[in-house]
């Protein structure tokens, strides 16, 4: 029973790391209906910028602040050069634009900051803690706490600020929002900047775990089943989806893996996502599309 509990808790905590990545997707999808393929590249770019600034001798807080500024400037540039010219184009066009954008960001990152692998020390020890007989990772606990704080901040931003109300209006009905004078371009800039900051948080935590290197952009693969399960339009859904994926793949690897050859975590998450697609196509917290026919 102890081992089961340990696996379950470990899985839930690991799932919050997936949620952190998924939240970045949700923000942009909510505001513009675009599945941002470049989220992984943004995550990599943010972490790489932070580490590069630290290598120049900047203290943690200043490096963090400057990285936030860089990501905000990046958001404005993306909105001006990529999104604005494509406004009113189909979703697949915007998706393809973000696909191209991901390669541009990765190439730019390597050109500016080099391809070498960097260690990232956030000062959080990756050591086991024992809650009774159950072992949990201190690092995972910090990651889970970070996700909780991030969700709280985003909830405040969306629900208690004028910008948040505008964001929700755009997400609910873009045309209606435009008709009452909401500046869509400004909203997109803000959303992409916030998604960049979320990418920075996720990038720092994933970077501390695996090093800051180009494969960091591959962590988005873990976010896709999370989004399918939780829904593309709900931050709460991203959290719930992450927890479900984390717990399920950990339990499956330990209890099912030995019977079917092991190494099942990557595809098991997608298998689970497929099951959810059958039962609840919009995800647990996603908005159901209702159309008049």
């Amino acid at each position: 029973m102890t081992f089961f509990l340990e696996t379950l808790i470990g899985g839930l905590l690991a799932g919050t790391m997936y949620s952190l990545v998924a939240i970045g997707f949700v923000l942009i999808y909510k505001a513009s209906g675009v599945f941002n393929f470049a989220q992984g590249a943004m995550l990599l770019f943010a972490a790489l910028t932070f580490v590069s600034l630290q290598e120049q001798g900047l203290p943690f807080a200043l490096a963090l602040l400057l990285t936030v500024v860089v990501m905000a400037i990046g958001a404005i540039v993306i909105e001006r050069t990529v999104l604005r010219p494509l406004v009113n184009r189909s979703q697949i066009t915007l998706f393809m634009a973000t696909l191209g954008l991901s390669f541009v960001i990765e190439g730019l990152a390597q050109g500016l900051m080099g391809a070498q692998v960097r260690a990232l020390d956030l000062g959080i020890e990756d050591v086991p803690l024992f809650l009774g007989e159950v072992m949990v990772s201190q690092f995972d606990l910090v990651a889970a706490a970070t996700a909780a704080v991030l969700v709280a901040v985003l909830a405040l931003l969306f629900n208690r600020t004028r910008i948040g109300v505008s964001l929700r209006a755009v997400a609910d009905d873009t045309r209606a929002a435009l008709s009452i004078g909401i500046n869509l371009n400004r909203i997109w800039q803000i959303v992409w900047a916030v998604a960049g900051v979320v990418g920075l948080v996720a990038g720092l935590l994933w970077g501390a775990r695996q090093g800051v290197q180009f494969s960091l952009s591959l962590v988005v693969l873990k976010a896709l089943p999370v989004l399918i399960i939780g829904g593309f339009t709900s931050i709460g859904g991203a959290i719930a989806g992450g927890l479900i994926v984390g717990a399920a793949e950990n339990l499956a690897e330990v209890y099912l893996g030995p019977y079917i050859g092991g190494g099942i975590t990557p595809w098991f998450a997608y298998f689970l996502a497929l099951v959810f697609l059958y039962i609840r196509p919009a995800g647990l917290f996603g908005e159901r599309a209702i159309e008049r026919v």
Partner: protein
Amino acid sequence: MRKTLQCTLGAGALALALQAAPPARAADLEQYIPLPSFRVGPYASSGIPLFDGIIDYLTYVNETQGGINGVRLTWSECETGWLADKGVECYEQMKNGRNGSPTPFFFPLSGPIAAALAERTEQDRIPLVTIGYGITDATAGAVYPYNFPIMANFYSQSSSVVNYIAQLEGGADKLKGKKIVTAYNDSPPGRETIASMKLLAEKYGFEDIQVPIPLPGNEQTAVWRGIRQHKPDYVFLRGWGVMTPVAIKTAVRFGLPAERLIGDIWSASEEDVIPAGASAKGYKAITPNPSGTDFPVLQGIRKAVVDAGKSSLRDKNSFGSVFYNSGVMQGILMVEALRKTQEKYGVKALNGEEARWGFENLSLDEPRIAALGATGLLQPLEVTCDDHEGGGSVRVQQWDGQKWTVVSDWVVAERDLLRPLIDAGAARHAKEKGIAPRDCGRPL
């Protein structure tokens, strides 16, 4: 009719001109070497120092010796991103040589590219050379005439690790009852050591536990929770890319001492341990080319290439790293194989068929390795028609938190024990493909 006459006269004039031309001097000759590099993408951090090492060694030979017996070395790079599709495209662009020089061999420097090119290179008669990866069964040159998994194939890597563990335990008899987990990347190359570890476990009586880790491997909590349940004495870590640092960190988090983790050749670079931070302190890994700058050949490169401003290296900190030294070692093999080939075919630009002879007669003993300035960097090699590996040794190095330190001499694999596995695999391949094995002086 008039056209035919023009053609005939033209051909005659060309033949006369060729006869009248003086024979090419060695100094006019160039030997082309294709370099399918990966300087962008997820594996660029490995590819950049690796190809810089190769290029710096080739430059060193040109600068200090005027090439190989006067034949200057030229090369071109083609970006593969380490991916099979781009690798095949690069191969097709490069296989016909450059500026009149044929392509003598192809070092794909990527498992997926090597797998994709295995049949094409046999058809094109261009040696496909893989060091520390590739098709293990291609050690049997009778069935794979143009495939050379030189130095340390996957079976030899696993055997060397077991032999090293036996050294640590005080003898092979002490292996009985031990638990050795092989945590392998779940891919065809990753699965290559399953058979060899099974055989070694049967011989020595240790418990062989195989655990796959799906690539890319950026989350391994569940896997290592399972491994911890086995209470292993040692873990043979067969990683690639981000899988290795995540494995080290996760293993240590689950209470497995880093000293009990022994990585394979592809989990043995600075790029594998630096991201793991303090967790990697004490971690060990095998390598056919240790890091370090004290080897005389490295000192020579520093003087003639790096300090002279002719180095390909942008990040000078990579000089002497594991991947840079791997590049130097691969450069040495390229040059020595061509030098050997010239002994038979003359001082000229060589093609794939000729270079195959060079590889199959490549012999590097200790005096020759010393003359090359590579003692300790390069193991003795004796490649033959029957044995395309020719070596089978590795050294063990340990990460002290800042740098690798070599902690063993060359650890030799039990190649005689493993050879029947290779022969059986090669025979199966020959049967499937309808290949009549060459006579290499020993039946398969």
